[in-house]
């Protein structure tokens, strides 16, 4: 029997190519969406790994600074670690963020490391199958070891001359050197290596980023860690691997968000499979009845039919792999920008298509397709053979009809009810991890179960039968089975469009208002090469020179200056920006949007207390009045929290304190002034802001960035738009799949209803009228989808804004409906739906009255 079905498959495909092709396309897009998101997530993780990678083979412990600043582990710590009992090897490492290597005509960006070749066991030279080359004399003289792909891109071989420099430091800081060696390296993760001393010189400051320690015996790890803690104060000791685990957790929420969006595409694809299988099985009902009559069991027929669906899913997955890879490639820059903006990481370098990710996408596609097909296969195979063999459409028993009529809307209403509960009363909704996403999933599935019932309610519609479109509308509402499935797919897409767009709109409006509220100064000055703003400064750790500070102080229009110092620490395993400002400044209060008692918070801040950001407060469960111990060089000194401020610039968390206090907690290196990373300038009343910016730009030249309030605000909004742009692709995916679904369903309907169309033709309807009837059906599908999907999207928005966002990102957003965007998307849905209906309508118009030889 299997052979029979397989042999008949090509003929079936030839007879109805679209019926086979469109679900395959839908699965391909669904699988492609999942694959692209997986690839991007992996690429982001690999970027993270590259920066946190333990590069010395066999390291058991990693020594890092308490403060996450470049060179925060003092050079003297290295001999101290080496001398500690139980330490077999200790390899000092510095990370060269933004290393660029180039020749006269080409250049490349590559993750860079400064290492001590003697003390570590680095695998770049020969450890990977002996394919690497290393000229030690060149390396120890400042030469650079490159991964082969970078060397190929630059067209250089060992001992060829190149220049090296750091991003943002300008061409003047580049210095010439030689290629000391090459090694194969893994794609996307290959780094360049320099000798430690030369790397420190390139970075322009002493100190190590970490020391990678191997212990004599594996069982000695804990005693060694204790010994090191006692001997070397002011450092952090982590087991190797902890850093990466913490890093992965860093943007788990972001990855989950992307995954959820791709799951929506898959959900829509599953509905499409449901629709196509339904249509295919309707066409093959008598064939199934025949198999059953000839003795095939329900189970056997069911397994065979699901087997066909599985083949279809695998074909779709195979097609989806290049689609996913292309989509991921197209989105790489956007995701990279998002990761850089939100998580202060480096940009993603490239994609690696790992076989396990491809397998995962295929598996997910297969499961979605089977889940979509199973209900209809079950429904068909459980009919009696005599019912299946009867000509015409098989009637359900009254009990079964009741079940199918009432079951989906009851289940759908229950699911939506749960989601509405979560959206309207987030406080009493179970605060389990993922429960917000669970409620969103329940909402989408619940909404998709409603179209049939809503269409039944509209079945009393009688008007407009004189027009062809009106008769199509009537047909659609009288036959929910012919309208519900494609409407369900479109409902999910519409709900997702409304929800995600409104979330982004709310976020943007909140951010805009927050920027307006907190960008109190007139002009902001930061070190050249940075994007400006405290967040950027904290990530880049570039300080302003004394000359810049003098010039800004001397400017005639500057009334007051608010100087900012920024550094990063780790609290409970995650990086937190510590920002020092002049708390005593009269305008200080304007810089913060305080949650709760503003007056008390600002008073406390002025008296040496902390202001913590909302994401940090949520993550650590902090509130005003709590004490927070800050890991400091001197001692872990608890400080009282004066209040919590809104911060939409950093998901990981930040805290503000008075800069003088900060300098006492984190004193600068002896003999050097405390660094200042940014200056906010308040101009005199009546001063010309644009003129002041121009003057400062001219005076400061290339040594600093000068932006005014408005420019900084628009820059921040641009960064936000760039960050959210990645969701656009996934939204388009869902809409395209849903439109395909509408097209597919109408197409199968043309086939199913050819005799009905023929009757209309026989009764005098012309081709335009027939096409109009199908467009009428399409209008009902689109209308129902907009109605239910719009409502579900509104609830989804509330869920995303009030439940998902605070739990996963720690941000409180003000609800804002982007009506213009929503209207445009509504128009896009109508257009996509109507376009999807055009081809079936044309096909229907070609049906001849001779098709009346069949039964309606």
């Amino acid at each position, binding site marked *: 029997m299997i052979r029979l079905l397989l042999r008949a498959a090509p003929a079936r495909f030839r007879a109805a190519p679209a019926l086979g092709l469109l679900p395959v396309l839908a699965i391909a897009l669904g699988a492609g969406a999942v694959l692209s998101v997986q690839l991007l997530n992996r690429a982001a993780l690999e970027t993270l790994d590259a920066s946190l990678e333990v590069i010395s083979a066999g390291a058991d412990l990693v020594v890092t600074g308490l403060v996450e600043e470049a060179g925060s582990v003092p050079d003297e710590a290295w001999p101290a670690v080496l001398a500690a009992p139980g330490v077999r090897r200790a390899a000092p490492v510095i990370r060269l963020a933004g290393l660029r290597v180039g020749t006269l005509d080409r250049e490349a960006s590559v993750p860079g490391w400064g290492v001590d070749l003697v003390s570590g066991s680095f695998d770049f030279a020969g450890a990977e199958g002996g394919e690497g080359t290393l000229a030690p004399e060149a390396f120890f003289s400042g030469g650079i070891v490159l991964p082969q792909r970078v060397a190929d891109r630059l067209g250089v071989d060992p001992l060829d001359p190149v220049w090296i420099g750091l991003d943002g430091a300008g061409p003047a800081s580049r210095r010439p050197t030689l290629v000391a060696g090459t090694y194969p390296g893994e794609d996307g993760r290959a780094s360049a290596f320099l000798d430690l001393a030369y790397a420190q010189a390139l970075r322009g400051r002493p100190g190590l980023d970490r020391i990678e320690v191997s212990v004599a015996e594996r069982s000695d790890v804990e005693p060694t860690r204790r010994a090191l803690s006692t001997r070397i104060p002011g450092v952090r000791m982590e087991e190797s691997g902890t850093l990466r685990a913490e890093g992965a957790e860093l943007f788990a929420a972001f990855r989950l968000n992307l995954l959820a969006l791709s799951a929506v595409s898959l959900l829509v694809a599953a509905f499409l499979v449901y629709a196509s299988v339904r249509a295919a099985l309707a066409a093959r009902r008598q064939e199934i009845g025949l198999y059953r009559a000839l003795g095939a069991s329900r189970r056997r027929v069911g397994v065979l039919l699901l087997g066909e669906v599985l083949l279809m899913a695998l074909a779709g997955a195979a097609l989806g792999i290049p689609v996913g890879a292309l989509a991921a490639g197209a989105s790489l820059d956007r995701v990279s920008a998002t990761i850089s903006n939100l998580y202060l990481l480096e940009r993603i370098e490239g994609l690696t298509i790992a076989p396990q990710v491809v397998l995962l996408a295929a598996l997910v596609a297969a499961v979605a397709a089977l889940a979509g097909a199973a209900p209809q296969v079950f429904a068909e195979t459980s009919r009696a053979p005599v019912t299946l063999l009867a000509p015409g*459409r098989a009637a359900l028993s009254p009990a079964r009809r009741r079940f199918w009529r009432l079951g989906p809307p009851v289940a759908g209403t229950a699911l939506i009810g749960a989601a509405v509960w979560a959206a309207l009363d987030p406080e009493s909704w179970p605060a389990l991890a993922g429960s917000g996403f669970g409620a969103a999933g329940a909402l989408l599935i619940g909404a998709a179960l409603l179209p049939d019932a809503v269409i039944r309610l509209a079945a009393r519609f009688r008007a407009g*039968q*004189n027009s*062809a479109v009106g*008769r199509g509308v*009537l*047909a659609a509402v*009288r*036959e929910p089975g012919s309208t519900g499935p494609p409407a369900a797919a479109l409902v999910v897409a519409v709900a997702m469009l409304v929800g995600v767009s409104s979330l982004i709109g709310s976020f943007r409006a909140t951010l805009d208002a927050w920027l307006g509220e907190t960008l109190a100064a007139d002009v902001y000055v930061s070190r050249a090469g940075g994007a400006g703003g405290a967040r950027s400064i904290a990530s880049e750790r570039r300080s302003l020179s004394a000359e810049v500070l003098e010039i800004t102080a001397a400017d005639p229009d500057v009334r007051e200056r608010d100087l900012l110092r920024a550094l990063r620490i780790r609290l409970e395993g995650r990086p937190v920006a510590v920002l020092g400002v002049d708390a005593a400044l009269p305008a200080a209060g304007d810089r913060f949007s305080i949650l709760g008692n503003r007056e008390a918070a600002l008073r406390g801040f002025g008296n040496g207390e902390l202001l913590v950001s909302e994401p940090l407060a949520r993550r650590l469960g902090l509130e005003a009045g709590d004490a927070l111990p800050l890991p400091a060089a001197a001692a872990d000194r608890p400080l009282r929290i004066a209040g919590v401020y809104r911060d939409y610039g950093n998901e990981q968390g930040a805290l503000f304190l008075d800069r003088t206090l900060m300098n006492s907690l984190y004193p600068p290196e002896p003999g050097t002034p405390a660094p200042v990373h940014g200056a906010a300038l308040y101009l005199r009343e009546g001063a010309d802001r644009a003129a002041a910016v121009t003057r400062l730009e001219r005076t400061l030249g290339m040594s600093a960035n000068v932006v005014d309030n408005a420019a900084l605000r628009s820059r921040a909004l641009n960064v936000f738009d760039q960050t959210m742009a990645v969701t656009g692709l996934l939204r388009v995916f869902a809409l395209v799949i849903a439109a395909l679904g509408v097209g597919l369903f109408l197409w199968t309907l043309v086939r199913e209803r050819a*005799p*009905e169309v023929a*009757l*209309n*033709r*026989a*009764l*005098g*309807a*012309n*081709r*335009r*009228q027939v096409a109009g009837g199908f467009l009428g059906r399409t209008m009902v599908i689109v209308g129902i989808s907009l109605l239910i999907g719009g409502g579900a999207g509104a609830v989804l928005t509330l869920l995303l804004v009030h439940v998902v966002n605070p739990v996963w990102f720690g941000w409180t957003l003000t609800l804002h409906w982007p009506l213009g965007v929503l209207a445009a998307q509504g128009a896009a849905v109508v257009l996509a739906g109507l376009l999807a209906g055009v081809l079936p309508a044309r096909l229907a118009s070609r049906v*001849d*009255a*001779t098709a*009346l*030889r069949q*039964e*309606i």
Partner: protein
Amino acid sequence: MSPVLELREVTRRYSQADGSELTVLDSVSLTIQPGETVSVAGRSGSGKSTLLHVAAGIEVPSEGTVRLGAKELAGLSDPERSRLRGRFVGLVFQFFHLVPYLTVRENVLLPARIARVREVPGDGGDPREVGATADRLLAAVGLEGRAREPARRLSGGEMQRTAIARALLLRPALLLADEPTGNLDARGAGAVADLLFRLVRERSAGLLLATHDPELAARADTRLRLRGGRLFPAERPLASGAR
């Protein structure tokens, strides 16, 4: 009085998968006058349905001419043919072909909806509201009590009576009936045949009836047989309606 249907030397050939041609109608000529009833008998596959399709303008003949009333179909575009068919011809099918999700009355009104007409000529030629006409027809076929029910709930005989009412709604000059009793039991078939002939005669419409039921065929004024693609008189070598 001009004929309501005139076929002249009509041939209909179909191309087959092997490249050969199958001639289903071979130089068929037929004229039907207003009020005349003609039956065409023949075995299954003899071309009866094709003959009706060609007469209705649903299929275009390979050769020959078809004239519905004063209009020759060959010169008409598809929309014009569709319009003429909707107004001039009533169709009754073996499998009834009702739209299951429409009510009985809505099915009867379907030709008027398609043709966008609100009034049809009454018995005296005076215009009558189409809804009232549908109700009168439903009463005439004995289905006035079931007018608001979905068509799918009707029995076979009721469905065919509905189809006859639908076919007569716009007062067509020609009624084409393809095995109208083929799917009914003997009692139902008799009732439907009575109804069909009564209503056709009341309205002075021409009737072309394809059937392999000899009793039904015998009720027509002219009885023809289709064999080998050609029309022959059912009992005499040349029927009065065949030329």
